[in-house]
């Protein structure tokens, strides 16, 4: 028998601090696998956010920079403009990217910065204990929306992929999910296409990955996969919003 699946060299051996069932672990692995398979691990520099994945700089097996909250796309811009031949990526949660970092991600995309953003959307602030995020769903309870998100007070959740796809500089925009093995494989394919767009010098690429937060959703990890499928996918439709050919 031959080994068909083993731990990727794209991740260090360090065991992660993420909660049991947290999909950060899956997404980290996919990014590591893609960078390894594309043969660019030695040429990669990642930018870690502030959020549960603040410690991502310990888990990816490549040079890393830790950014201030929301600023990863600006930090990545600085790196890529200095080292245009390297593969530069940001890994950000929904608070980091869509709240405090909204300006930075929009402008990096608008400028067509040749970086790749992995956007982990689990509709809540994980690290700080479950506050409402720009992507928290209407009616969803969070510690700062204890009665459920009220659109009349705070507006509707933000659809980041659709918004960024309107920018010419964003050449590859896709929303995927990791709620079952089939979707996890599709996520990996999307991440690969995104990095390929960067390597080919096309422009800004982003993969929005619908993810779970069992701890702050107050559910068992298996239950949270179901909650994602039943509640997040209908509001955040999966699919491609910008293909490389369209971006030209």
């Amino acid at each position, binding site marked *: 028998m031959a080994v068909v699946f083993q731990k990727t060299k794209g991740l260090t051996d360090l065991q992660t601090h993420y909660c049991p069932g947290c999909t950060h672990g899956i997404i980290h692995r996919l990014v590591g696998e893609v960078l390894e398979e594309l043969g660019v691990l030695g040429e990669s520099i990642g930018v870690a956010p502030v959020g549960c994945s603040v410690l991502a700089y310990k888990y990816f097996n490549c040079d890393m920079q830790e950014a201030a909250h929301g600023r990863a796309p600006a930090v990545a811009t600085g790196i890529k403009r200095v080292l245009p031949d*390297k593969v530069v990526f940001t890994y950000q949660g929904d608070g980091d990217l869509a709240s405090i970092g909204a300006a930075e991600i929009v402008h990096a995309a608008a400028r067509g910065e040749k970086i790749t953003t992995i956007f982990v959307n689990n509709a809540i602030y994980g690290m700080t204990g479950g506050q409402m995020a720009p992507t928290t769903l209407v009616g969803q309870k969070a510690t700062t929306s204890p009665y459920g998100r009220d659109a009349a007070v705070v507006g509707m959740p933000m659809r980041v992929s659709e918004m960024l796809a309107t920018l010419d500089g964003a050449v590859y925009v896709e929303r995927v999910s990791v709620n079952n093995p089939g979707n996890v494989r599709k996520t990996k394919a999307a991440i690969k296409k995104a990095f390929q767009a960067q390597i080919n010098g096309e422009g800004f690429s982003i993969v929005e990955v619908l993810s779970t937060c069992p701890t702050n959703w107050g559910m068992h990890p298996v239950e949270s996969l179901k909650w994602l499928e039943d509640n997040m996918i209908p509001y955040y439709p999966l699919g491609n919003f910008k293909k490389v050919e369209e971006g030209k």
Partner: protein
Amino acid sequence: MSKVLMKGNEAVAKAAIEAGCKYFFGYPITPQNEIPEYMSRELPKIGGVFLQAESEVAAINMVYGAAGAGVRVMTSSSSPGIALKQEGISYIAGAELPAVIVNMMRGGPGLGGIQPSQADYFMCTRGGGNGDYRHVVYAPATLQEAVDMTMEAFEVADFYRMPVMVLGDGMIGQMMEPVEFRQPAKRELEEKTWASVGTKMERKPNVINSLYLDAKELEDHNIRLEEKYNTIIKNETRHENYKTEDADIVFVAYGTTARIAKNAADALREEGIKAGVLRPITLWPFPERAFDELNCKAILTVEMSMGQMIEDVKLSVNGRLPVHFVGRSGGMVPEPKLIVEKAKEILGGAQ
């Protein structure tokens, strides 16, 4: 080398390029726009990168990324924009990255005004951002100093791995004087083996970071930074004494205000009153020990603010001599007459 007549902002920008800086990230704000504009014209000519960021916040973070990638990099702004950069500067200090930040001060607080001031002294010498950190602050009084200090700033930043600020007031940025571009004394700089440039699978990953979740680790990190700062205090503090040896009253002033103070001192000497000027050149480290040498009757701090440096003057003097203040704010520039009259008032009272 021949001198060339230049506007301060442009001279500072050219000085950075002469120092080998090929990367600039900035944002428009009066009165320093000539710096990004100069960079946008000149950097593409030498294969450098100029990028107008979406905000001062984004710009300082681009500086962080570029500095982490191992190159000489600069940003510039004016007071409200520098306030926005404080978070980024704290991160740069914590991650021990080299970078040069130019502040052409304008009136504040808040949106303030666009005329020159020195009202950012607290923000720029007290850290401004969060946590225990310092950064070298150079206060040029002439355009030649602005040029020399900008070039020196890159050496100091690389040598100590820290952000370095060149603090001008709006006048330094806008006025024109003849300058020449001379290379500073080169320091022995180590190769930046810590930079995040890709492992090439030949080494362990480099991490550019200011996060230390373990309290003991963070304390050790802060102690190490403190040791670095103590070395800088010992080796990099600079000031100028102008006719202070026999002075009865010594003006303490920096930047263009020091030039006005020198004119006031000379005017007083013509009337038989012995005045001098102690000019801090590094605002951090502040030249505390220089005050030990003063044997005057009184000190008059002159600032284009409501009085900020005066606190460091008082700390340095430690009660040994009386310290007075005169200044203008809001963009008003003090005239020598103002200083002369205040000095006479102080000395009249002291007699």
